[in-house]
C-alpha cells in the first residue's frame, strides 16, 4: 500500500484513489456549489424585500431575458428558489457534508489504510462531478432551469405547458439527480462495508467514535431511501417523455385535454417523501456525529451517555422511515393515516430531546475551550433546539393545516436542517483542517466568521416564523398581491439585510480556507489534544495513513479528564493501566 511513490499530478489530484484526496474534492465542489446556492438566495431575497424594483446585480447575473430592466421575472424567481433548494439540500449538505467527512474520517477513525474500494470511491466522486456539470448546464438552457420546487411535484414538473422550467431544464435536473443518486449509492455502500469490515484490532463497535456511528447510519439510510427517489424520477421521466400516466390524470392545460387518465400525483408525493424525509436526517445525522465529537474534545469531558447517544441515533434513523406522511397531511390523504403519521412524527422528539439533554450534560462542569469549531458546534446545539421545537407544531396534523407551506415551514427547516447541518459542516472543517492540510485555519477570522454567521442566520430565519403565522405562503414571487400582507415589508427588509450580511461573511470563510491551505501556520500532529485515531497519523498525510503498522485500539474515544491520568486526554491507542476500568 505505501509504495505509491510514482504518482503523477493526475493520479494524485484528479483521479485519486486516496480517500483523503477524494474527501477534499467533495469538500471543494460542495463549497463551490454552496456559493452558487447562496448567491441565488440573495438574488431572490432582493425581489422579496423590494418587489418590482430594479437591481443592476440581477440583470448582471441573469441577463435581460430573466431580469428585464433589472427586475426579476416570476418564472426565474421560481427557478432560483428551486435550484437554491436543490443545490443546498443535495449538493452542499448531502454530498458536500457526508462526502467530505465520510471519506475523510472513516478510514482514519477506524484505523484503516483506505476505503474498502478506492476505485468505487473515486467513481462516487466522478458521478457526483458529472451530476454537478449537468445541473450547472441546466442553468443556461433557453427555457430556464427546473422551476417546480426542489420537491418537483408533478404535474407541474411534468408539463412544460405549465411552466417553462419544466422543459429541458427539468430533464437535465432529472438526469443530474440520477447521476447524483448513483454517486450516493456507490459512496454509501463503500462507507458501510468499510466501517463494518476494516476496523483495526480492538476497535469494537462499542468503541467507535460517534462520528462513525452517525456516518454508518447515514449510509444505511441513503442506501435504503435513494433508490426510491430513483424509481420516482424514472417514472416521472416516463410520464414526461413516453406518454405514460403514473402521476397524471384528467388534465386540461393550455386549452387542451391531455390523454392521461388513472395516474395520481399523490403517488409521486409518497415516493418522493419516502426518500425526502430520511434525506433531511441524511443531512442532519453527520452533523450530529461531528458535533458530538467536537463538543466532547473541547469540553475536555467524555460525551455524556455514549450509549444513549448511539441508541437515539438509531431510533431517529428508524423513525425517519415512517414519518414521511407529515409532508402530506393536507393532500387529501386518509385522515386516519394522518393520525398515524402525527404519532410517529412526534415520537422523534423523544430521541432528539435525549440528545439535547446529553449535550447540555456534557457541557456541565466541563472545561470548555472555545475553538472556532467549538463555537459552531454550540451554534448547532442552539439551532437544533430552536428548530426541533417548531417541529412539534408542523408534525401535529391539526396545527399543520394552517402553517403548511407557509414561511413558518421555511423558518423551521432552515433552522433545524439548514443551519444545523451547515454549522456541523463548518465545525468539521475548522476541526479537521489541520489533518486535511497540515496547517491551521486562522483563529481570529474563524471567531469573526462564527459570530456574524450566528447573528445573521437567526436574523434571517427567526422572523420567518412570524411571516408564516401571518399566513404568508412560501414560493410567492412577491407578497404585494394581497393587502393582508402589506404590514410584512419591514420583516422582509430585515431578513434581506441579514441574508446579505450572512452571505458576505461566508466569503471571509472561503478566504480563510484557501489562505490557510497555502499560508496557514503549521499544525502539530494532534493540535486539539484529541483521543481519536486520526490524530496519531503523521502530519505529512501519506497514502495508507500510517507509515508503520496500523495502531490497535484499547479504549473508547472519550477518556478526557479521566481521574488517575496525568494528561487530560488518553488516546484510544493507549492500553488500559493495571486496575483501570473502561469508562
Amino acid at each position: 500500500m505505501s509504495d505509491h511513490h510514482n504518482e503523477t499530478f493526475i493520479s494524485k489530484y484528479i483521479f485519486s484513489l486516496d480517500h483523503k484526496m477524494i474527501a477534499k474534492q467533495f469538500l471543494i465542489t460542495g463549497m463551490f456549489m454552496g456559493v452558487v446556492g447562496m448567491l441565488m438566495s440573495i438574488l431572490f431575497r432582493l425581489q422579496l424585500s423590494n418587489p418590482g424594483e430594479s437591481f443592476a446585480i440581477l440583470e448582471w447575473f441573469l441577463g435581460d431575458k430573466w431580469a428585464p430592466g433589472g427586475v426579476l421575472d416570476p418564472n426565474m424567481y421560481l427557478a432560483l428558489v428551486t435550484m437554491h433548494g436543490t443545490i443546498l439540500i443535495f449538493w452542499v449538505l448531502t454530498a458536500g457534508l457526508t462526502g467530505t467527512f465520510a471519506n475523510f474520517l472513516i478510514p482514519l477513525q477506524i484505523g484503516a489504510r483506505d476505503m474498502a474500494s478506492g476505485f468505487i470511491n473515486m467513481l462516487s466522486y466522478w458521478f457526483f462531478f458529472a451530476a454537478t456539470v449537468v445541473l450547472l448546464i441546466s442553468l443556461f438552457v433557453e427555457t430556464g432551469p427546473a422551476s417546480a420546487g426542489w420537491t418537483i411535484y408533478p404535474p407541474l414538473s411534468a408539463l412544460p405547458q405549465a411552466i417553462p422550467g419544466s422543459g429541458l431544464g427539468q430533464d437535465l435536473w432529472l438526469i443530474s439527480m440520477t447521476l447524483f443518486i448513483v454517486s450516493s449509492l456507490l459512496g454509501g455502500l463503500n462507507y458501510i462495508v468499510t466501517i463494518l469490515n476494516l476496523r483495526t484490532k480492538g476497535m469494537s463497535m462499542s468503541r467507535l467514535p460517534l462520528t462513525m456511528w452517525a456516518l454508518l447510519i447515514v449510509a444505511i439510510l441513503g442506501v435504503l431511501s435513494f433508490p426510491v427517489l430513483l424509481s420516482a424520477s424514472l417514472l416521472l421521466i416516463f410520464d414526461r417523455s413516453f406518454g405514460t400516466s403514473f402521476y397524471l390524470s384528467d388534465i386540461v392545460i393550455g386549452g387542451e385535454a391531455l390523454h392521461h387518465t388513472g395516474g395520481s400525483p399523490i403517488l409521486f408525493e409518497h415516493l418522493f417523501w419516502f426518500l425526502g424525509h430520511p434525506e433531511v436526517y441524511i443531512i442532519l445525522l453527520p452533523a450530529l456525529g461531528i458535533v458530538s465529537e467536537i463538543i466532547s474534545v473541547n469540553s475536555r469531558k467524555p460525551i455524556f451517555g455514549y450509549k444513549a447517544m448511539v441508541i437515539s441515533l438509531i431510533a431517529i434513523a428508524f423513525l425517519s422511515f415512517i414519518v414521511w406522511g407529515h409532508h402530506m397531511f393536507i393532500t387529501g390523504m386518509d385522515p386516519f393515516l394522518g393520525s398515524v403519521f402525527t404519532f410517529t412524527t412526534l415520537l422523534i422528539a423523544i430521541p432528539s430531546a435525549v440528545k439535547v439533554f446529553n449535550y447540555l450534560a456534557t457541557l456541565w462542569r466541563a472545561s470548555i475551550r472555545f475553538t472556532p469549531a467549538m463555537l459552531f458546534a454550540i451554534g448547532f446545539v442552539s439551532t437544533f433546539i430552536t428548530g426541533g421545537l417548531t417541529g412539534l407544531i408542523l408534525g401535529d396534523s391539526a396545527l399543520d393545516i394552517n402553517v403548511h407551506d407557509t414561511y413558518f415551514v421555511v423558518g423551521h427547516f432552515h433552522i433545524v436542517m439548514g443551519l444545523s447541518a451547515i454549522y456541523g459542516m463548518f465545525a468539521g472543517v475548522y476541526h479537521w483542517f489541520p489533518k486535511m492540510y497540515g496547517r491551521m485555519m486562522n483563529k481570529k477570522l474563524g471567531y469573526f466568521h462564527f459570530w456574524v454567521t450566528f447573528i445573521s442566520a437567526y436574523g434571517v430565519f427567526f422572523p420567518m416564523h412570524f411571516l408564516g403565522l401571518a399566513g404568508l405562503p412560501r414560493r410567492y414571487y412577491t407578497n404585494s398581491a394581497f393587502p393582508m400582507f402589506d404590514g410584512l415589508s419591514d420583516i422582509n427588509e430585515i431578513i434581506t439585510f441579514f441574508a446579505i450580511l450572512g452571505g458576505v461573511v461566508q466569503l471571509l470563510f472561503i478566504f480563510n480556507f484557501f489562505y490557510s491551505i497555502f499560508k496557514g501556520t503549521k499544525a502539530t500532529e494532534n493540535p486539539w489534544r484529541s483521543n481519536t485515531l486520526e490524530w496519531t497519523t503523521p502530519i505529512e498525510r501519506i497514502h495508507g495513513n500510517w507509515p508503520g503498522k496500523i495502531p490497535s485500539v484499547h479504549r473508547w474515544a472519550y477518556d478526557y479528564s479521566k481521574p488517575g491520568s496525568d494528561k487530560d486526554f488518553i488516546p484510544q491507542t493507549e492500553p488500559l493501566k493495571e486496575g483501570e476500568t473502561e469508562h
Partner: protein
Amino acid sequence: MTNLLIILIAFLVIATLVQILRVGELLSEVRNLDVNKVTEKDNKTQSFLMGSVGILFLVSCVWQYFSWEHLMLPAASSEHGVTIDKLMAFTMILIIVVFFILHIILFYFLYKYRKGDHNDVAYYYPHNNKLELIWTIAPTIVLTVVILYGLSVWDQITNADTSKSQVIEVYGKQFDWMARYPGEDETLGSYNYKLVQGLNALGVDMQDEASLDDKLTRELHLVVDEPVLLKLRSQDIIHSAFLPHFRVQMNCVPGMSTQFAFTPTKTTSEMKEQEGDSFEYVLLCNKICGAAHYNMQMKVVVETQEEYDNWLSQKNTLSEKLITKK
C-alpha cells in the same frame, strides 16, 4: 469598466487581508507564540460573548414577538379554527418555555464552564443511567399529552358530520379560482375533464339533470354559522385552497376530488369592524403552480342567509348560461 473596477477592488481587499494575516503571524513568530492556539484570553472573550450574545438573542426573540404580534392572523373565524387556536396556544407556550429554559442553561454553562485557571480540569462524568431514564421519560409524558390532544382535535376536524352541510365546489386552475353552487336540487352535477371548454370551465356534464341549476361564481360566499363542505378540484396541476382566517387548507389535485368541512362564525362586516375597513377574507393558492402562483386568489365573503340568498339569486344557472349563449 465597472466590472473591471469590481475585480480590482476585490483583488485589493484580498491582498490586504493576506497582508494583515501575514503580519499577525510574523509578529507572533517573533514573540514565539502560536497565533492560532486558543489562549485563556480567547476563552474568556468567547465565553463572555456566548453569555451576552445569547441573552441578546433571547431578548430579540421577545422583542420580535411584541413588535410583530399585531401582524399575526386574527383569531379564527370558524368553529374548528377556535379549537386549533387553543391547541396552537398550548403548543406554543410549551415550546416557548422549553426554548427559553434550554437556551438559558446552554448559555449559562458556556459562560460558567470556560477553561481557565479556576477551571482547568473537567469533571469526568461519562453517564448516569438514572438521569437518562428521567430525561427519556419526561419528554415521553409531555409528548403523550401533545399527541393525544392533537389527535383529538384532528379527529374532530376530519370526521365532522357533513350531512347538513351546504356543498360548494371550489375549482382551481392556472391562475384563478371558481366556485360552483348546486342550486335548488342541492346536488352538484357530475363532470368530466374532457368537457372543459369555453364557458363550461369546470367540465360539468350537462346531460346530468343535476347540473342544470348549478351556478358558477368568481367569489366564494358563505353563510355565517352554517356548516359548509368544500369539494375541491383542479383543472391542470396541484393547487391548494388556503383560507387562513378559517384555518382551512386542502390541496386541489387533478384526477381526484378532495374536501374540507367547516363552519364560518364571523361575517365579513363583523371582521371589518374588528380589523379595519380594508379587511377581506381571501382564498389563496398555497401550492407552487407557476408564474402567477403568488397572485392566484379569490374573494371570500361571509354574510347572513338573507344577503347570501340575494347574491346567489342574481347569478345565472349553468343551463341559462350555456344554453342562451349557444
